[in-house]
């Protein structure tokens, strides 16, 4: 006959053996990294994740005229949507609109945002070459790069944005 204590011990052994194999319901399906690729377009600020491809500001200007100007205006200003160039540096809380040239800390963000979210009505419709070209065009408009710099994964990763050091982390202890 089992004592209460020995049943307890036996149960504990069975349970911990079970835990070693699967802690929870185990209903997630494994997936290969290559099968996540279509969704995994995240780009890190050091440029990791940037895809193959290449584009120039001149190419970007043409694409912009076709797919972006309707909302963002000529040269990225005066449209119904956000201004894409800066009026000047932001020096106070009244500093005006935060834009690529005077505010964005990382060029990787520009590539990532255009690729995932623009143009507004057909997000994720641009090729990687087109996204590089548009990124080059907007960075050249903002005088972050010159008109002749072609962008690809290597050159984009090296860009230092003017306002890179303009940020203070509010709650570092929560990270």
């Amino acid at each position: 006959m089992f004592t209460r204590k020995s049943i307890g011990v036996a149960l504990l052994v069975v349970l911990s053996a079970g835990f070693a194999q699967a802690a929870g319901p185990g209903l997630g399906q494994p997936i290969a990294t290559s099968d996540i690729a279509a969704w995994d377009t995240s780009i890190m600020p050091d440029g990791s994740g940037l895809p193959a491809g290449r584009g120039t500001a001149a190419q970007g200007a043409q694409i912009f005229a076709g797919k972006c100007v309707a909302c963002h205006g000529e040269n990225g200003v005066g449209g119904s949507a956000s201004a894409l160039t800066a009026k000047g540096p932001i020096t106070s809380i009244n500093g005006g609109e935060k834009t690529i040239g005077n505010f964005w800390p990382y060029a990787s963000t520009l590539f990532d945002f255009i690729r995932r979210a623009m143009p507004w009505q057909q997000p994720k419709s641009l090729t990687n070459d087109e996204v590089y070209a548009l990124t080059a065009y907007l960075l050249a408009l903002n005088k972050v790069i010159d008109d002749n710099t072609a962008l690809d994964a290597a050159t984009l990763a090296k860009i230092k944005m003017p306002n890179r050091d303009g940020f203070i982390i509010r709650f570092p202890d929560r990270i």
Partner: protein
Amino acid sequence: MKRTPAANRGDNLTPVAGNGLLDRRSFLRGGAAIAATMGYTLVNNAAAEPLADDPWSLTPGAVTKPYEQRSRYEEKVARTLTNPKGETRVQNARTPLHRLNGVITPAGQHFVVAQSGAPDIDPAKHRIVIHGLVKRPLVFTLDALARYPMVTRTHFLECGGNSAPLFSPTPMQANLQALHGLVSCAEWTGVLLSTLLEETGIDPKAKWLIAEGADAPTLTRSVPLKKGLDDAMIALYQNGERLMPANGYPARLLLPGWEGNMNIKWLRRIKLTDAPAMTFPETKTYTQLLPDGKALQFYFIEEVKSFITQPSPDLKMSGPGFYEISGLAFSGDGKIAKVMVSADGGKSWAQAALQEPVLDKSFTRFRLPWRWDGGPAILQSRAWDDKGNVQPTRAEFVAKRGELKAPLSLVAFPNQHFNAITSWGITADGEVKHVYA
């Protein structure tokens, strides 16, 4: 001279602070008995009309519907929209907090900020993938998630841009809904993220997670893994029903107490990483300019805040006499510990009663009886949480965060995380207006 607390004198309706604020306990214990001796019956109101049966008592009522609608008399109690025609720009819907009570926001009244509208997601096809710095990447269907252990928790959700008009240099001629309507509170049910991360395993190098929505702009935010393992939830139900489409149907990330935009709606992907991705919303939209032009980033927490919902602008006072002041307090860092109310613009304060249960990172309703003498009054509320955080006065807040030179439009929020005291000015004719005090 120290005053004896009113309650100890057995005179619960004696003012405990300036301009007629009464003891919060007046109506809590033995309220009826106190009221009977203290004189409701002493007020000489005009006599009521004789009672007669109304038409609705003389005929059968309406047929019960499969999904109930509100009374037609309540239809005007609704969210205000900034982009009702769905033009190609962000859409905001603000909660009519001044016409609701309790702490739960009905799902149809929950605030919304949607960059590009609500996607029409087929739950049978929806997938959530967890990958990156994990031991094994896993995909979860909603059917699979339905079999996991769930939790139910009541939490407020606030847009980082809520209350932004109060950065303006002058008071706003606007109501509570316009000023503070980008915060709501719901009962959320879902699976803790930590439960799923136990199954994927976590690479020790992981410090952040990137959460991504399935909406048109596939909005992404970086979240410290610490929060992910603390109380983050994949929410599936809102007030007992599946999530509303605009609130993230069929699954959203819920980061209790943290900036609304980080609570990724229509959640489809979580990637564990060693660093933040520095996405568009976390480097541009939800960064906060300071007086010197530098900007705060990774604000995360919706800090301790409160405001009076009744009375408030649009709710005209109907003559001097008794009112209950009522409002909402919440903190993204814990539970509300105390709310003080002033009727004289902050010169004197009375402690409000907190409606139980007081929950973590949830709306807490506070109430305080008030006898308005019909003269000018300035109502304020100020909240404390159980972590020692105090809601700042407007002066304290502006000294740190600054103020704008020109009044802000009521629909924009170029700056965020405003949590200072709100003041309502009552005029002698009973109008309630936003004021600075």
